[in-house]
Structure formats: C-alpha cells, structure tokens
C-alpha cells in the first residue's frame, strides 16, 4: 500500500456551549491515500464537517478547542502548525468547497477577483497570468464564454454554475486534497449529477484526493472508494464502498441503508426511518451513542463504548452485536 497523504490520529474537538462541553469530534482516526475518494457519511451534528474544518484550523477558537490528536499531511502535523504555515497549506495543498454555493462566494467581488487572489497568493502569478489561469479553470469546469463570464459577479450565475466556480477556485492551485463539504446537497438533482461527474473527471485529470462529506448514500455509491460512517462524533464503521453496501456491520449503517428509498420495492410500503433524534452531544449516554435508537441493543452497550472490530473484508466497525445473527427488536415477538 502506498504511503497515505493524510493521516488523522485520535482527533478530538470540543465546543464550550451553555449546555456544557460538546464533544463534536471524539477520537477520530483515518487515512487518505493519494488519488483516493473517501466518503464521510453521517447525520447533521455527527462531526463530519467539524473533523475537516479542525484539520485546517477553521474552527473558531473559542468556543471550539482541539483537545488532542494529530493530522499529518505529508508528515507535517497540521494541528500544531502555526497560522502562517496553515495559510500556505490552505487553498494551495488542501482546498475546500462548501455546501451552499449561493453563500460561499463573496457577493461583493467578481469571480475574477475571487479566483485570481488564490493563484496570485500561492503561485505568485502576475495579474495577467492569474486571469488567464482563471479563465482556463472556468473552462475546465464547463463554464461557456469563460473569458467574459470571469468578470461577472456571483449573483449573475445560477446555483450549479456557482458551484462550478467554487470547484474551479478550489482546484486552481492543483491541490493534493480537495475537501468537499456536501457539495451537491443544495443543488437540483440533475445539477447534482453534473457536479459529481465533473469532480470525478477532474480527479482523473489531476489525481487529486477527495474527502467527500455527505449524508447522501447515493453520492457515496457514485463517487467514493472508501467510506467512514460517523455517529455522535465517532467513526462507527469504515469499509470500502462495495463491502459497506453489501455487508453493513453496524446497526446505524444498516439503518442508513434501509432508509434509502428504492425503486424496486413496493411503493405502498412506508419509507423506513431510523427512529429517534440525533444524540445530544452535550449529554451523551455512557456507552454506545447510538444505544437509544438501536434496534439491536443489548444491556452491555449501555455500560461501555464498543471497541473497533476488524471486518473480514478490511475496515472495522464499533458494535458488540453481530447484526447478521441477531434479530432487530421490531422483528422479535
């Protein structure tokens, strides 16, 4: 196996709130290989965005605090890097795109101003070089008439086009890693597919590693090689995509897969959901965070946090119960 590009080790992030200390990320470890697309799946508040923002020092501190861990990018710990070094890495080596392209671009500046400032800063482009490069990037992401549109303001673009601009901006320094935080969630379904295809295309062209944060398993199946499933600030299951879909081992993963609407089932059947609410991170139960909502729960799940167990096909999961040989609560009579 090749040397990983990024190694996150026991990352913990806390937020001080009025209700107490919230452990938004609680001991997360993972690797990212060059050219790989890693999916991070989970509900809102599961810690998937915070994990990535924390790596780049984008958590407001206070109230946030990174209480432990390492995030090695090419053997350099991002969590202890000083602000200046982090600025050099952000946008140059590790770039991000965000969920809502309507608000993620600055409405007061033209696309040209926003695109060129990255390359002028990191690649020391001259004014003319930077504009030429910006136009080239916009063409690569499929914006027609890029040489004119580059001087437009974000509000003159549609949502899908703005997300293309965001991608062009993120990729303009040819970064090693692209962190995409729900890049297609705010878009129409047809535009979503286009954006994902575009990202796949650009990945093959540039060899960029992608961390795809999403709650959409369709996106995961479409684009990812490996998946982390997060719940309550912890990774509850990790596997490559095919194994995860074929053989989910954690009850939460099972629930997620079950709640995807399918075209081949009886339409009179009600859509399945995972009962209950996402956990209150300020008051997590002592054992497994998923315990209150789990259909497979046993008494021991309340006493201690289940350790990570190896999956036969690589990866691991954190559950005491063998979901293949235990019936879920609703089927027991």
């Amino acid at each position, binding site marked *: 196996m090749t040397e990983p590009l990024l190694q996150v080790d026991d990352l913990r992030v806390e937020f001080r709130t009025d209700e107490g200390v919230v452990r938004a990320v609680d001991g997360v470890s993972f690797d990212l290989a060059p050219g790989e697309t890693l999916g991070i799946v989970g509900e809102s508040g599961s810690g998937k965005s915070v994990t990535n923002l924390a790596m*780049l020092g*984008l958590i407001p501190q206070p109230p946030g605090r990174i209480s432990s861990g390492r995030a090695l990018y090419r053997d350099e710990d991002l969590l202890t890097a000083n*602000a200046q070094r*982090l*600025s*050099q*890495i*952000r*946008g*140059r080596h590790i*770039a*991000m795109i*965000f969920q*809502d392209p309507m*608000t*993620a*671009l*600055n*409405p*007061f*500046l*033209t696309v040209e101003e926003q695109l060129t*400032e*990255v390359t002028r*800063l*990191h690649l020391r482009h001259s004014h003319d070089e930077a504009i030429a490069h910006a136009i080239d990037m916009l063409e690569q992401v499929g914006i027609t008439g890029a040489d004119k549109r580059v001087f437009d*303001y974000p*509000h003159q673009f549609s949502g899908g086009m703005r997300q293309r601009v*965001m991608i062009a*901006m993120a990729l303009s320094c040819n970064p090693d890693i692209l962190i995409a935080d729900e890049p297609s969630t705010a878009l129409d379904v047809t535009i979503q597919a286009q954006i994902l295809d575009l990202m796949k295309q650009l990945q093959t062209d540039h060899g960029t590693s992608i961390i795809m944060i999403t709650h959409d398993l369709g996106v995961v199946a479409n684009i990812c090689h490996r998946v982390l499933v997060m719940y309550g600030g912890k990774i509850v299951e990790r596997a490559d995509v095919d194994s995860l879909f074929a053989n989910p081992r954690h009850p939460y993963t099972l629930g997620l897969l079950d709640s995807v609407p399918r075209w081949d089932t009886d339409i009179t059947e009600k859509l399945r959901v995972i009962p209950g609410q996402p956990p209150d991170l300020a008051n997590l139960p002592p054992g497994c965070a998923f315990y209150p909502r789990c259909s497979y729960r046993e008494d021991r799940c309340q006493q201690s946090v289940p350790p990570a167990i190896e999956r036969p096909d690589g990866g691991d999961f954190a559950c005491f119960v063998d979901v293949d040989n235990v019936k879920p609560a609703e089927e027991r009579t």
Partner: protein
Amino acid sequence: MGESLQFLFRRAGWYLATMWVVYTVSFFLMHAVPGGPFDAERNLPPEVRKNVEAQFNLNDPLPVQYFDHLTRALRGDFGASIKIPDFTVNEIIGQGFPISASLGLFAMVFAVCLGTTAGVVSAIRRESFVDFSFMVAATLGIAVPNFVLASLAIILFVFQIQLLPAAGWGSLKQIILPAICLGAPYAGYISRLTRTGMLEVLGRDYIRTAFAKGLSERRVVVRHALRGALVPVVSYLGPAVAGVMTGSLVVEKIFALPGMGSHFIEAAFQRDYPLALGVVVVYTALVLLMNTMVDFSYAILDPRVKLGEL
C-alpha cells in the same frame, strides 16, 4: 452613467414633492401654534403693533400669506427675518450654514475614522479587553452630554495642556475641539454599528471560504468583510450627516461659533416664521441630498444593488 442620471431625474420629482409637503406642513403648524412674533414685547399700542405686523404681512389671511411666501421661496427668497432686524433669512443662513456645515463635516470625518476603526478592531478581537474598552468608550461617547464633554475638553486641552484655543472660528486649530465634541457620540454609534455589521459578516460562509483559500486575516477582513460590514454604517450616515451639518446649539454656544445651530430653536420659540421655514427647508434639502448619496453608496458597495430598482 445613463442609469445614474435617470435615477436622479426620477428622484428629483419626488424630492420637490417632499419639500413642498414639508414646507406646507411646517408653515401651517407654526401658524397654528398660539402666539406671534411680537407677543413677548411689552405694551405695544395696538396701532404700532398693527403697523409692525403689516410690515411682515402678518395681517393678511393665512392662505394669502402662504402663497405669497411660497412664490417667493420658489424663487429662492425666504424674506426678511422678523426677530433679527435688517437681515434677510437668506443672509442669515448664508452666514451660518457654511460654518455649521464645515464643522459638521469635520466632526463626521473624525467620527467615521474613529468609529469604523474601533468597530473593526472590536469585532476581530471580540470579547477581548480591547473590545470591552472600546465598547465602554463608545457607550460613554453616546451617553455623556455634549456640554459635559466640551467642558472637560476645554479644561484639558485649553487650560491644562494649552494646546488649542477655547473658542472662535477661522483657523483649523479652532475647529478641532468642537469637531471632536460634536463627533464623539456619532463615533460611538458608528463603532457599535461597525462592530455588529462586522461580526455578522465574519460569520458568513464566504468568509470561511476566504480563510479556506489561505488568505491572511488582514486580507480577509479588508478585502472580503469590510464592504459588507459598512452597509449599515452608510445607511446611518445619511440622516446623521444632514443633522450634524445643520449645526448643534450646544457645541456652537460653548465654543462661540457663529453657526446656524441656534436658529432652529430660537426661530421656533420667537415665532420668526420666515427664518424657521428657511432652516427647515435647508435641513430637508440636506436630508434628501444625503439619502441620494447613501443610495449611490449602496450601488458602489454592493454590485447586486441596481440604482434603477431603488
């Protein structure tokens, strides 16, 4: 540019209508208040009184007075002042307004520079000691009355340090103290507005994007956040500038400045109808002018704002 001209022409019609409404309402309101310009004077024999009043057409029926004065006002002539003998209203305003206006502009420049700087610094270092001290200072600036501040400033800069003159008009040195005293509450208010605006903008998604691009904090603040943060300040500046340029009774009295601040109050108390109407019209025109400039500033600050749609 064509868009701006169209905008101005469309606005001009509305402005004239607004001015007329303000003029008319002020005229009848003032005359509706009991009393007249010569009530305070002792024992005027009825004949003398009649004569004096006839000199200012005060015996004509009110509608006649109104149309007389309006037609002259439309030609730019507000008539003779009743209580300041031998001066026309135009002369009084012509002398006082430039002084009040320049003092006001100095005060506003001071207030904007200090207020926005303090507001930005407070927002970036929020909940720090610096933020706390600036906001206490801002509250003091708003809460402490002008005359207290002016007296303190005179004691400190005139008598203790002997750096600046205490009163008078004509040199730059004489403007500094009154401009600071006049501008202080505005500076306080502007700093709070800037801080709030900045905090709101700093929480926006595009600021996170800017940081994710690797820009330094200074660059993110100056290039990405400042414009958005100044929008509320600009809205506030329109009426504030108009108010401050038409003079302040207190500051002009304390520093013995021949501005027009006192005319507002005295003309109303003394029922000097022509002078009161004159200053009201000047003030209204100034408010409308400033609001137009605010609209232009919006269009300059925010590319999404189209003058044609305002």
